[in-house]
């Protein structure tokens, strides 16, 4: 006799899955990948591919030989980590090799050592990125200038990024805001074009994978804080529009800080989290040793996330 299933209610499911979410994030990253290939050519393509392949390979190896659990590489999360790691490094030929080391740290230490997807306290791609930044400060801060479109050469001419210009104390040589918006500037692969980032972010918002809270709080706080500094001394500090369009703020606010696993769950927690990221970013940029502080800011706030989850409870229906 055929047996029927029994289980507790509910008996239907929204059909949402982790896999779908991760593949949608990958889809949202494609505009940035295309822009990176357009501006940085072959290097950008190679770095992205190498990074993704290493991430997948490391996750597969760790699951097979160390954790001895079924492989989860098809859930797409290692690809997200790989792409985001690639988007956070300069498009130089040295990075094609170094990004593999970043991938090992990102997947091995950042993610799998905690038990895999969902258990990691820090954003894996940022763990990998910061490891590279501290270990290879020269290579990680040598940015190629954006020259003609689709360069097919591995060798690049290095030049300063807008934030490096700022660190050296000049605001005159900065590109215009629209150049920053389209991204024809020096910088890491994925951070140059605010437009491409926004396209991806709007897709994620429509798909309800991210909510507006973290990006708006992050960018808004960075904007307001920069505006205050700029009003105090416009000679020394950059105007707020340039400030939020340069460096990794856009990429960080829309794709790194919004990582579900490492950000708070309640809306209030997310607003505090975003604001903290924005504040720390500008503090590091203005008074820290590094020209850019997005990665550190997000990692520091990642560490605060469990506390925010504890403090910021959703409003209860019945009190």
């Amino acid at each position, binding site marked *: 006799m055929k047996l029927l299933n029994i289980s507790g209610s509910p008996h239907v*499911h929204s059909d949402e899955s982790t896999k779908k979410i991760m593949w949608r994030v990958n889809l949202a990253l494609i505009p940035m990948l295309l822009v990176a290939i357009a501006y940085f050519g072959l290097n950008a393509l190679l770095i992205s591919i190498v990074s993704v392949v290493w991430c997948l390979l490391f996750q597969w190896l760790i699951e097979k030989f160390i954790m001895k659990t079924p492989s989860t590489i098809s859930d797409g999360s290692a690809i997200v980590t790989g792409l985001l790691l690639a988007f956070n490094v300069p498009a130089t030929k040295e990075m094609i090799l170094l990004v593999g080391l970043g991938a090992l740290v990102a997947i091995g230490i950042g993610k799998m050592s905690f038990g895999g997807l969902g258990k990691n306290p820090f954003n894996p791609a940022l763990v990998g990125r910061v490891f590279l930044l501290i270990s290879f400060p020269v290579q990680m801060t040598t940015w190629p200038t954006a020259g003609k479109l689709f360069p097919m050469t591995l060798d690049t001419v290095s030049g300063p990024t807008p934030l490096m210009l700022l660190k050296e104390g000049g605001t005159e040589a900065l590109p215009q805001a629209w150049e920053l918006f389209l991204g024809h500037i020096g910088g890491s692969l994925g951070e140059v074009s605010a437009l491409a980032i926004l396209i991806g972010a709007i897709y994620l918002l429509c798909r309800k994978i991210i909510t507006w809270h973290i990006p708006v709080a992050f960018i808004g706080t960075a904007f307001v804080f920069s505006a205050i500094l700029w009003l105090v001394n416009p000679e020394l500090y950059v105007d707020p529009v340039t400030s939020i369009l340069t460096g990794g703020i856009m990429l960080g606010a829309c794709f790194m800080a919004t990582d579900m696993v490492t950000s708070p769950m309640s809306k209030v927690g997310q607003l505090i989290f975003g604001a903290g990221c924005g504040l720390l970013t500008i503090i590091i940029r203005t008074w820290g040793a590094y020209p850019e502080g997005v990665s550190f800011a997000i990692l520091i706030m990642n560490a605060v996330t469990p506390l925010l989850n504890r403090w910021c409870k959703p409003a209860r229906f019945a009190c």
Partner: protein
Amino acid sequence: MKTFKMGGVHPEENKISNDAVIEQMPLPSQVVVLMNQHLGAPATPVVAKGDKVKVGQLIGEAQAFMCANVHSPVSGTVTKIDTCKDIAGIAKPAIYINVEGDEWVDTIDRTPEIKRECNLEPKEIVAKLKEMGIVGLGGATFPAHIKYSVPEGKKAEYLIINAVECEPYLTSDYRVMMEHAEEICIGVSILRKALGVPNAYIGIENNKPVPISVMTEMSKNFQGIVVEPLKVKYPQGAEKQLINAITGRKVPSGKLPIDVGCVVSNVGTAFSVYEAIQKNKPLIENILTVTGKKIPSQHNYQVRIGITYNDIIKHAIGALPETTGKVISGGPMMGKAIVNLDAPTTKGASSVLVMDEAEARRNPETNCIRCGKCANACPMGLEPYLFSALVKNGRIEEAQKHNILDCIECGCCFFSCPANKPLTDEIRLGKNRVRAMMAAKR
């Protein structure tokens, strides 16, 4: 449009049996009448083996406070007073009756004529509700005479009639409104009189435009009945959410609707109140939907209580399709998977939902990715992911502190979880553990 304010989800509606008019289910050869078809203590059998009974005769008497009378749904001979396994496979006291003919108690008015006048006093109405064994048909089967006896020091201000039917698939309320709008309005007027409130609000989800217009038209002939279309969002028909949608009030944690001046009854209950008060007909029949995507035909039946689920399936669709994965009593969000198809139906039964294998399958569970979708979906503003972790680790006191008992088990958390974590199951387990802990402390 009015709605509850917090959380909620949008499951696929699947109201495929909307247009199936109510048919009469033929009598089986035997019925089994459970003695606790309601919330509270079982009724006490007042017939003995070998007794002849008529349709509508009292066979189980409410002797405890929280209890309801049970009447014979058929005429025939009592063959045994024993236990019978219910749909969950748990043995309950029951009366077995062999069906012989269809002879009704004389006092029951079986004419189709609609009786509009009701001259009973509120107290008499409540007494008659008790006599007729009326219970809430929205799911909880709360005895109606207790609900409509407002305790000393409390005052009812709103009567809310729940015709939301937010559960996917179910259409029994839909059909009752389409076919018995006037009787419902009379029943609502009687309940309004019993409570002494100025207005009754009938909440209907906006995906039922025809019943909304039918009820709105009909309510114009009655004083103090307001039809309130509500936004399509699950669980709009959950008691606390419905009160919130219609009155803006919130039932505090651990309190009852009457504490905020509200009494909520299902639209099906209003119909059975009409039959009980105006026609002297006890609660011996209810409307039951037989539905499912893969079954050959869709039905709504008027069914005598005590007929087995197997009998219903046999009459409605012959046999379950080969690919059947699960049979559910109730809707897919809160209904119970039937363990024992030989179990009899009860007063609260609302449907037989046949799900096919693919639909009934649960996807494998993966790691929580802390997306917070469960907390966003929770209409009570709770944190299901937290309960899941606390219950698994045996931290029951903490679960209690985070108000696990506020959970209404609507299933929104599990429904929306991308990691397919059985959150509602874990919370149910946690609630039981909390209750056990509280009982042990007492």
